[in-house]
């Protein structure tokens, strides 16, 4: 019997036509379809680039009705499960439901009912059954020091598990800063030799969805993009999908006018903070942080850190834990030499100066002696 399509699956679950169309619209929005890649071969009308709403939604509807479900295998390594947590609490139930239930997560340690060897067996079965077809989602960094002993599941190291799962994956999505760039496990002094997925997997398409946690809509939107188009969205130089990481927090910040006007909060409870002025002086990393917080926001668009009065930490950028302090202005240098080192440099300069001056004087004297003065 042929595998049922997503449309058939939804119908069986009792999703009405109206709800289905709503879902498709939601997906179109979530995927930011303005960035749709040129997909003539896969049947996407070329005018989709300019069309939003009905045309792209109907395209998505068409794809969902006729495509088979894409299995997802979700691995967790050195993580806090915060990205999974964010997904399950994302408050956009239709979207998450669509992605988690409909598109099918075959293996997820935190969410699965099965445990232990049963779960591992289920994963092995899924990897065999869907070889070359499944999407691998990785959450958490991968320790490599001491043969990777710092993170093992069922007696096997994270490196081993990642390589095994990556071998049969159609595409890999690294969710959260840890999987994307190493995150907090990789912060100085990186005791476990933590690495990102991209550091270890070089022969498969990898998308990074960094963030701490990753914005759930960005993760699901990227998975949805893969389901609908059979391809990953356009990526930036750090392998982040452009629809979600095309702008900085600063670019879309609601406090931006205060930045331009030079109106800054100087502390967390001064007049400026109460009036909602710019948080640049309190260490905001918004200008160099690419993420969708300022537009998609969190908890169904309720708010995001800067709106709530806290500077952006830059959690979707590499090495943000070692970025020179969360509350230090971004223009400040990352490292400062200590007073002792500066003093030593000054002393060294002075000593060389005295030496050269003395040498010059001696030369002058001996020249005078030679001349017989």
């Amino acid at each position, binding site marked *: 019997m042929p595998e049922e399509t997503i449309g058939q699956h939804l119908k069986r679950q009792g999703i009405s036509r109206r709800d289905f169309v709503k879902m498709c619209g939601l997906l179109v929005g979530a995927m930011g379809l303005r960035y749709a890649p040129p997909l003539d071969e896969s049947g996407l009308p070329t005018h989709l680039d300019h069309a939003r709403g009905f045309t792209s939604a109907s395209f998505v509807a068409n794809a969902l009705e006729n495509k088979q479900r894409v299995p997802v295998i979700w691995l967790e390594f050195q993580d806090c499960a915060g990205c999974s947590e964010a997904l399950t609490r994302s408050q956009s139930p239709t979207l998450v439901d669509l992605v988690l239930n409909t598109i099918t997560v075959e293996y997820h340690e935190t969410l699965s009912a099965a445990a232990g060897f049963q779960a591992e067996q289920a994963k092995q079965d899924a990897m065999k059954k869907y070889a070359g077809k499944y999407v691998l989602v990785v959450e958490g960094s991968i320790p490599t020091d001491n043969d990777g002993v710092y993170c093992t599941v069922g007696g096997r190291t994270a490196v081993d598990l990642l390589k095994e799962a990556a071998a049969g994956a159609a595409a890999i999505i690294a969710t959260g800063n840890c999987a994307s760039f190493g995150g907090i496990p990789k912060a100085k002094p990186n005791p476990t030799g933590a690495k990102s997925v991209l550091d270890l997997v070089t022969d498969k398409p990898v998308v990074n969805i960094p963030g701490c946690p990753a914005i759930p809509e960005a993760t699901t939107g990227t998975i949805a993009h893969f389901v609908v188009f059979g391809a990953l969205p356009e990526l930036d130089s750090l392998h982040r999908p452009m629809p979600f990481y095309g702008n900085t927090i600063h670019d879309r910040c609601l406090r931006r006018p205060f930045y331009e006007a*030079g109106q800054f909060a100087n502390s967390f409870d001064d007049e400026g903070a109460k009036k909602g002025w710019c948080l640049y002086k309190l260490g905001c990393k918004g200008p*160099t942080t690419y993420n969708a917080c300022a537009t998609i926001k969190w908890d169904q668009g309720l708010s995001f850190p800067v709106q709530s009065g806290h500077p952006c930490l830059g959690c979707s950028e590499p090495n943000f834990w070692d970025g*020179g302090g969360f509350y230090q202005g971004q223009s400040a*240098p990352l490292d400062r030499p200590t007073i002792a*080192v500066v003093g030593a440099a*000054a002393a060294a300069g002075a000593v060389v100066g005295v030496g050269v*001056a003395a040498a010059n004087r001696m030369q002058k004297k001996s020249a005078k002696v030679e001349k017989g003065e």
Partner: protein
Amino acid sequence: MTMNWENVLEFARGPFFQVALLVFVAGMFYRLVRVLALGWKPDRVKAKGSKVGGIAVSFLKGIIIWPFIPWVKNTFSRNPIIYLAGGLFHLGLFVVIFLGTAHMLVWKSLIGVGWPTLALPIVDWFAAGAIVAMIALLINRFVNPVLRLLSGPAEWLNWLIVFLPMVTGYMMTHHLWFPYETLFSLHMLAVDVLLIWIPLSRISHFMFYFFSKAIHGADFGKRAVTP
């Protein structure tokens, strides 16, 4: 590791900045000691006035009075472009470096003390003024035959190394043409190069100006001939 602007920025704000700062400090102390070691000839003139008074008058006139009544000085009437553009450049540089918010935060992180700053649009006009002034000075240097003869590679390099941080900083503030972190990286690289270049070049006059002003002021004061 793939090369991207985040790595460049980390390098330029981190280790490279630190090295540049230490080279700057060591270099300036070297220069200072070399100048001091030149020594003073004994001055046996009988004091007719106060040395300290001479120094004070010299600084007051040089910084607060002459810039606002430039026409009484020969320097102005002979070279109005250099006088005006040079003045505008130095004023703009001072405002940007000390009264721009981003730069104040750099000082705060280095010396631990912050101060109130001007709004971005105001600092912006000073920055634009300084950049225009620098371009005017460059053209003047090209066009004026005497200046052109006096200019060697060091003079052209001085101009370029001071100009690059200014123009990248301006572009960065206005998000012109390139992504912010690209311009931020270029700005920091340019600043690091400038820090290293200062002690090797005549840009070190930012320190020696005050020395020469003080020494001449003291001489004038002692002889009671303060101009």
